[in-house]
């Protein structure tokens, strides 16, 4: 072995180590967290799911809540309104309502389905619901 061998060996070792480190570095970062996307309720949401949605909405607004089976069925937004009652003559009792609706939004991040309230930014995971991300345009 010549005296040059050692530096040459060292050079190769350093290079190998550097490449290994680089390769390890490329593989090591954790996968990016799944992106949060607007969602809808997949299939026919069961009673438990709608009850969970309804309970969250009632908690956030302090009011009784009536949902239809189509809640979040086709979109990520749920509007809840009050004061739309009609009189015996069929006309709106108020008819000039000035109260904005309560707005709730459904999102999904990976398998985690969440409902949020626009009014106070409260959010909650929905454990009884299956959410599907809305297709992106």
């Amino acid at each position, binding site marked *: 072995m010549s005296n040059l061998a050692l530096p040459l060996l060292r050079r190769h070792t350093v290079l190998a180590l550097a490449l290994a480190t680089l390769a390890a570095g490329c593989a090591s970062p954790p996968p990016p967290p799944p992106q949060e996307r607007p969602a809808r309720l997949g299939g026919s949401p069961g009673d438990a799911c709608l009850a969970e949605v309804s309970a969250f*909405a009632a908690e956030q*607004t302090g*009011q*009784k*809540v*009536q*949902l*239809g*089976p*189509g*809640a979040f069925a086709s979109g990520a937004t*749920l*509007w*809840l*309104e*009050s*004061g*739309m*009652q*009609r*009189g*015996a*003559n*069929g*006309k*709106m*009792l*108020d*008819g*000039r*309502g*000035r*109260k*904005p*609706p*309560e*707005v709730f939004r459904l999102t999904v991040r990976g398998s985690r389905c969440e409902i949020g309230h*626009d009014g106070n930014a409260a959010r909650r995971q929905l454990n009884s619901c299956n959410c599907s991300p809305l297709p992106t345009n």
Partner: protein
Amino acid sequence: MTTSAELRPRRGVHTFAAALVALTVAACGGGGGGDVASDGGGGAIAPSSQSAQRCSPNNPYAAPNLRSGSLGTEKQWVRSYLNEAYLWYSEVPSINANAAQFSSEADVYGSLDNYFQALKVSARDRFSFTYPTDEWNALSQSGVTAGYGIELMVGSFSPPDRNIRIAYVEPGSEAAAKGLRRGDRLYTVNGYLADSDGSAAGLATLQASTFPQAVDLGATFTWQFTRGGVLLPTLTMTVANVTKQPVLVTSTINYNNGDKVGYLLFNDHIATAEQQLINSVNFFATEQIDDLVLDLRYNGGGALYIASELAYMVAGPARTTQQNRVFERLSFNAKRSAENESFGFLDTTLDGSQGLPSLGLSRVYVLATGSTCSASESIINSLRGVGVDVRLIGGTTCGKPYGFSAKDNCGISYFPIEFQGVNALGFGDYANGFVPGVSNVGANVAGCSAADDLTRPLGEPDETMLATALGYRLNNDAVCPVLGGRSGPLSNRQAATAGGGSMLRSPARENRVLVSRQ
């Protein structure tokens, strides 16, 4: 037709929303500073704060911890609150609050409602009402209502010819799946004749079946309809939650000369209408329509912000936001003049996330009947206020330029008329409705009388009201067409009787559907 400049918000939606909240807070928090006045019987009227939330032990709507008062203190509060908040507070009649019909401890709500109704200025006020607070505040998914997916109209509230017909069918509903159509006439329910049954049991069945409420979900009824005089197969209908589609038809009528007329059937001012209206206006803009027929014949109002948005989308920014014009100014009584407030045209969605498209029309044909009410009338009035040439086709509108704020006392919300809505020109005197006819001054609106034509689908160019609008347009808005005797030129006064029967939907507190309160 829509430009980026048109889409840029000029008047923030949050300003509008904040103003709404401020107004609500002011209204709900107000009521303590009224002057001491006479009750009409020589006694002074104390401020409502002195009797507020002092509830009868027999009031089932009051929170238990508030039941330390009496029916008398609740009536005292009603009288005081009207003295402060009512638009016509100085004209409230003198009423003996101790009369029997106002004094039943067994029916506290009924007694209070009777008293409230008796205090209304009956010559002016067809609209003030009361409602249990919890029920009023309950939130429903926008557009969801208990029913079958049919909207009914009635020709008469009394037998022998009630003439109950389907005005329209909601797509995707049970009624649609079972083949019911606009114009079908109700023949029997559970064997009771819809036109003529006068028995108590028959009336109760008709009322319960035709206008179900949330508590009736799952109930079934056996129906028979006729179509063109022919009996249709018997149907069993189940009360279910139905999702209404507020914008039912968006279409264009194309002429050989290249003209395009847009047709928009808009039935409900509800939150889900916002995106549907945007989609419709985008469609009309793409189609480059020359004129628009806005069908509000069944639209009894609802959320005012939706009306503001639609008016903006029809008129465009040049007449509205760019001039900072008023959509509607709320005018309260003299004691509350500090609360008078103006609302501009909204040029974004309510959440501010999206600019609204617009058509920039200088003229619009509005189809209307007596069921066209409140926020729908605001659209007509606001457009006229900014110089849009509104042509009215059909019948006289309901005449409700008024509004309310809920005021709770002891679990009951009271809604005396509190303000009158006026347009950018300061006009709001249409308490007897907008009347189509020759004149175009005040509540008289140039246009034609025409009857609701239940024999043809809505949006079909041959349907009488739409055909009248189209014919009138072809006559350069000068002459109403004569459509085989179905419509024609009438004076505004004559037009007051046109436009068809009354829409009927779920009653508020009790089933009085077949007994008109107006």
